[in-house]
């Protein structure tokens, strides 16, 4: 049962070490549109080598950009991204929280103008390192638990 039957990827992107149960949440952030038809496999709640649960997403024939992948860190900060060409890992990196998060997370301030009907997407900017904290560009509120307010 421990072995996951996902065919090895010839070309594409593997997102590994996704927080268990979050695989479906990250799909909307990958910019994979409806026309994408090559192949996408998702494994959820599989055991890692260190016997911890994780999700994995494999995307065939599509190399995802470094920058757009960093948005994933909001949902799953420990995810790793591997770019595969001809069955070989040609590039591997860990996601890193970006300086600005736009349109992914709602501002936690219920009285913030961005939580109403205005034609803007939410915009959170990095306000502090270690621990990393973001604040709303509009109302200035420091944000806690970003993953709870994914749009």
């Amino acid at each position: 049962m421990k072995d996951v039957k996902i065919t090895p990827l010839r070309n594409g992107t593997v997102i590994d070490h996704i927080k268990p149960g979050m695989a479906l949440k990250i799909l909307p952030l990958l910019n994979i549109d409806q026309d994408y038809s090559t192949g996408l496999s998702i494994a959820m709640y599989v055991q890692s080598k260190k016997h911890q649960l994780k999700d994995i997403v494999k995307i065939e024939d599509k190399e995802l950009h470094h920058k757009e992948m960093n948005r994933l860190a909001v949902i799953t900060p420990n995810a790793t991204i591997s770019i595969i060409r001809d069955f070989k890992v040609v590039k591997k990196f860990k996601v890193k929280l970006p300086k600005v998060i736009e349109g992914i997370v709602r501002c936690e301030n219920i009285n913030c103008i961005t939580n109403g009907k205005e034609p803007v997407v939410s915009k959170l900017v990095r306000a502090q390192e270690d621990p990393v904290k973001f604040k709303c560009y509009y109302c200035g509120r420091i944000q806690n638990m970003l993953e709870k307010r994914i749009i």
Partner: protein
Amino acid sequence: MSLKGRDIVAITDLDMDEIETILNEAQKMVPAARGEVKNDSLSGMILAALFFEASTRTRLSFETAMHRLGGDVITIAGQEGSSLIKGETLADTIRMAEGYSDIIAIRHPKEGAARLSATFSKIPVINGGDGAGQHPTQTLLDLFTIKQNLGDISKLHVTIGGDLKYGRTTHSLSLALGRMGARMTFVAPKRIQMVDHILDDLNRMDASFDVVYDIKETIPDTDVLYMTRIQKERFPDEEEYMKVAGAFRITAEMLEPAKKKMIVMHPLPRIDEIHHSVDATPHARYFQQAFNGVPVRMALLHLLLED
């Protein structure tokens, strides 16, 4: 350095030199603010005062400031403001107002409204208060009043009392004073003491401050006593409110041990925090402070519209 075309949304948008420039310009504006000399430097210009929330003092001082510089004012206030909020997005109202004016002053019940307006507007936006958020012109006029009376702010001890939890005025004032190197004492009942995120910010900038609970003991050693309104709604019952309101009421008698040059400030309107007996003492500065809203806003209008 030029501030022309800039937005003033939060006091933190301004660096120390820019604050200094604004305070110096405000000092020059005092005679014209009093109507003693004529200043027509903004003749032909129009201020749109968009007050989606009532604030008579702030609105009138913006309007007076513009008139004192020879400019004109168009205003949204009262019921009109609240029906506009229901009717269309702020983004749309701003782009309409921008077509009718040269500069916008906005007050709005939602936090972030001024930043949003600045994002959509091609003309300068001044924040006249957005919800529990920012109110930079209040902070500027507070700093101006302190400097005008006592000079170098970095050498002063400022005691800030009253509602420090919900009072946004005290938040941005203390951050500004911290940046300027003033020593601060926060005095309030536990329930409404200064919030942690402001104390964290002050620690990060190495500001020097104390948190205390008894207002009487702070009086002899302070240069400025800045009181704010204590609202009944913040307390679970009438009894507890009365207890706090009683302990935090400044009277002329309480000020006897104060330094001779100590000044008492309050953003007004006051409830019971400052007894009328204080008005006649040489310490009272809250009416001067209210007047200072005019020269400070004149300075801003002038600097944002002219070089």
